[in-house]
């Protein structure tokens, strides 16, 4: 199976091309956040390095959120339209779980987190089981203090903080250790390996980023109109 994997959820941009369990080529950059401009040239370059054409691909694996709304939308639109137009398989993986893929020590707890500003996070808690990160506390948009309360019952275990964990050096408890070096960055190669073990998306049309948060306009509207069905706001004319 030939696989393209990509993560543009935040400032790091990571792309990999794989054939089954073999990583053919991968690139991870942190130099800019112009993912719309750089993503496809990097994909094209890696594919050419591997001697592959777009039509050779069998599956696209994408980190589809949470993260920067623009970042996850660029990655998701890229993967969604590519899978749709080539008629190949599509797999979405949590962008937080993607960071947890950097760790393999059995039973290790990992708390990937993205800074959502104003002391808010996108965060989840994962435990390595049979070599893979499994969900302990599902991904959510949450206040930092609330998240730390949720983690209190794990205070006797070590937790690896990754992502933007280092934005809160004084607020995280003593059982946190920070990820270092390459482990700090999402690795599309790991994403591509993991994505091969997951079932493909059944309905590509309805595949959208996992924002984990309503827009403010939408949230305010729903508060005022709790009974309204919000499923049919777009009409073909």
């Amino acid at each position: 199976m030939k696989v393209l994997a990509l993560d543009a959820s935040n400032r790091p941009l990571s792309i990999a091309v794989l054939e089954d369990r073999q990583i053919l080529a991968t690139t991870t950059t942190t130099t800019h956040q112009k993912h719309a401009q750089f993503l496809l040239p990097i994909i094209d370059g890696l594919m050419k390095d591997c001697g592959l054409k777009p039509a050779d691909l069998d599956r696209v694996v994408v980190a589809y959120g949470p993260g920067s709304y623009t970042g996850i939308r660029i990655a998701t639109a890229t993967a969604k339209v590519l899978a749709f137009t080539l008629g190949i398989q599509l797999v979405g993986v949590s962008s937080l779980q993607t960071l947890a893929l950097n760790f393999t020590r059995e039973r290790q707890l990992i708390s990937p987190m993205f800074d959502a500003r104003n002391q808010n996070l996108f965060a989840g808690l994962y435990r390595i089981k049979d070599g893979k990160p499994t969900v302990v506390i599902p991904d959510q948009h949450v206040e930092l203090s609330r998240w730390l309360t949720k983690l209190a019952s794990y205070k006797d275990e070590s937790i690896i903080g990754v992502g933007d964990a280092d934005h809160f050096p004084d607020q995280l408890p003593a059982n946190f250790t920070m990820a270092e070096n390459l482990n700090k960055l999402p690795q599309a190669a790991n994403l591509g390996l993991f994505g091969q073990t997951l079932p493909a998306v059944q309905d590509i049309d309805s595949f959208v980023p996992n924002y984990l948060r309503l827009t403010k306009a939408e949230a305010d509207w729903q508060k005022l109109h709790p009974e309204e069905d919000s499923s049919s706001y777009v009409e073909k004319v």
Partner: protein
Amino acid sequence: MKRNLMMAFESSCDETSVAIIENGAKILSNVVATQIKSHKRFGGVVPEVASRHHIEEITICIRDAMQEANVTYDDLDAVAVTYGPGLVGALLIGVTAAKMVAWAHQLPLIPVNHLAGHIYAARFVEPIEFPALALVVSGGHTELVYMPKEGEFQIIGETRDDAAGEAYDKVGRVMGINYPAGPTVDAMAAKGNDTFDFPRAMDKDANYDFSFSGLKSAFINTYHHAEQVGNKLNHDDLATSFQNAVVDVLVDKTLRALKNYPVKQLILAGGVAANNGLRTRLSAAIDQLPATQLIMAPRKLCGDNAAMIGAAGYVLFKEGHFAGLDLNADPSLEFDWAPDVIQ
């Protein structure tokens, strides 16, 4: 000659659209998914909401456009896309989708200016002959564009503040009409009388620029003052008075431009080009100028759609004007000003 088939994308604001166009002139399909119903809830387009809707609709639009046109990817010769101006997050969905279709099927990618698209909606009426002048009026733009030859666009005048369509939405809101207010105000204007004599800003100035914010303020002040003293104003008369003020300036400035820029064709385009008052008045005015033919974009193609992008994209295709894989959205893209504006 083999026919040229182009897939075109448009997602600059609140419509997701994909079209299949033959030789830049014939619409095989033009699928438009509009988000108006969603943004009505908020009284205007909310950018993040728009971006989210675009990614929900994009593959559905591609599939429907190909099925309606009865084409496969093997039939396509190029992919065209609006890359600006517009809302950056909204533009990015169309740009990303167009790039992926072009890359996956090894097709040239053509970057189209949204306003060139609006002008080329007229191409579906008949071929554009040069030199031509375009009056582009929409919710985001009000400008006069001189086209000395195919593929060249020069601004000779534009709004200094609000776009005409924006002014319609704002006075509409004051009268309790939901976004987009243009069609309703236009219908009311047909029933009322011009009793308020609102200002015609910059009408006598020796340039081709517009200003609608003073008109908007005059309207709102009149309305609120009447409310405060307990007067109920006739909404139809308000609509007629407002619309006359807008149309007077648009027509006067266009006629002034035509005097100094004798052209074969005058093109009326953009969302507000669907306005009946404007269409009627401009038609009557152009009847006095036998050397200039008026082409009005078809009403169905005045709003945002991908067919017009395909028509404008075909001109670039013939010139070999292609984008690289690094094409990005350019939210503030605009035509250059004419080097010397003749006044």
